[in-house]
């Protein structure tokens, strides 16, 4: 099934893109998406334990099961002031 992944702040830089459409298997979780991009991008892999995922504008836990057409936002912490 198709999902839409959006990257913010340092995750955007780690992946080099802010918006990616990917196909994942039925029953895939938010964590599977993190693993998918972590396996392709070293910095994303290091960020993985510290980011939070929001699906369709709500923060979810990493074992949240995704559905066709979901918008998955990957949001790392930001500390600047």
């Amino acid at each position, binding site marked *: 099934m198709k999902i839409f992944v959006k990257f913010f702040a340092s995750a955007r830089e780690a992946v080099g893109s802010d918006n990616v459409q990917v196909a994942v298997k039925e029953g895939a979780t938010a964590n599977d998406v993190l693993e998918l991009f972590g396996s392709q991008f070293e*910095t994303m892999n290091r960020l993985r334990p*510290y980011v*939070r995922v929001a699906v369709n*504008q709500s923060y979810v836990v990493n074992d949240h099961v995704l559905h066709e057409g979901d918008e998955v936002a990957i*949001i790392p*912490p*930001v*500390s*600047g*002031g």
Partner: protein
Amino acid sequence: MPIKVFIPTPLRPFTEKRDTVEAEGATVGEVLQDLLRKHSQLQPHLYSENGAMRSYVNIYVNDEDIRYLSKEKTPVKSSDTVSIIPSIAGGVDVAVETDIQLSKEELLRYSRHLLIPEVGLTGQKKLKAAKVLVIGAGGLGSPVSMYLAAAGVGTIGIVDFDVVDATNLQRQILHSTNDVGRSKLESARETLKGINPNVVIKTHEERLSSENALELFAGYDVIVDGTDNFPTRYLVNDACVLLNKPYVYGSILRFDGQVSVFDARRGPCYRCLYPTPPPPGLVPSCAEGGVLGVLPGIIGTLQALEAIKLILGEGEPLVGKLVLFDALKFSFRELKLRRDPNCPVCGDNPTIHELIDYDQFCGVKPPTVEETIDEETEITVEQLKARLDRGDDLFILDVREPHEYEIANIGAPLIPLGELPKRFREIDSSKEIIIHCKSGRRSALAADFLRKNGFKSVKNLVGGIDAWSERIDPNVPHY
């Protein structure tokens, strides 16, 4: 069918002191209507005059906030419990003393506030009675404190211990060119007094720490966070949870900003959002990664807005929501966030009951400690200079970004940190390797990476090119 309704302590005088009453209905709205028929004195506490539910009243069905269900249309069955969660009148308990008065000058100054029914004379007096603590007189702290002063917040406290630096001027609008080298707090006081001499400015020239935070926060109604590092953010969060104070959160990097209100009495806290801090260097600070100067202006004014709404008790505070702003796309997104029942500080069984060592928690060396280096893995700029002068054959590697290299470099080959996994074989592993970046954080990660990949002799240049420019070669521009 009768549904159990839980009544919080402050409202029990209106339900014959009972903590649970029964009301009939198939939806939350119907149950509440029946509740009001039976206990009419509750009406003004739950609904405003125009019939809307008061923003500071939270209704839960079992453990779910109805805002995340179908609001007042949420269906209920006989096994459910509807809970009215302790309302905090006006968002924060600003004690408006009866002797708070506005002078003629103030009436004129706040005219445009007094014309808004949601503020009016009552609201303006609340603002005057309010005490807001702003952490940091920097990028976020500037617009926050300036707008709070202009709005007539009676007491503004500011915590900072820094001196104004030329690199601050691009965004920290509290400070002017003439203030470079001055204490940030002195400069802030002058600017804020210039905006509004009626405001009491309390300056706290100290590093916020686990030793002083609780005592300091206790004297304020709202805490607004404009710090630039993770340890202080976790410290501010925990102190606010322990003291039951609302925490107006804002954070920025490059083109991205985040805003929220963490209020553990009625919503999630910062730890519910990010339970684990990233290790130092992984997420750059503004000093490392840069920030568009106008961005703190946008995020800071949103924080000032939320602080003022909390004081007035008007509108819907950004509790349980996090706003993400992407300046390049001009997009604001509002994400829903719930309290984590397992949160170590605000959860059902909290394990944190007092402030901890936040530098240790975030893996940061306490910044006040004198620079001590680990001879095995680190090298100072003075040591490097001496070894180069001696003619030692070293491989110096720069892991910054190309646009930084263009501003200043010391002639070392460049492999940006992000490209290192693909390109580390370009490095001559037979030589001793010295890695540098701007301040020493990214290069520490790079050094770790090389060691893990079999490089025997790798040292991180402590303080990076910043230290080189400051202590060895002033011809290298500082940026």
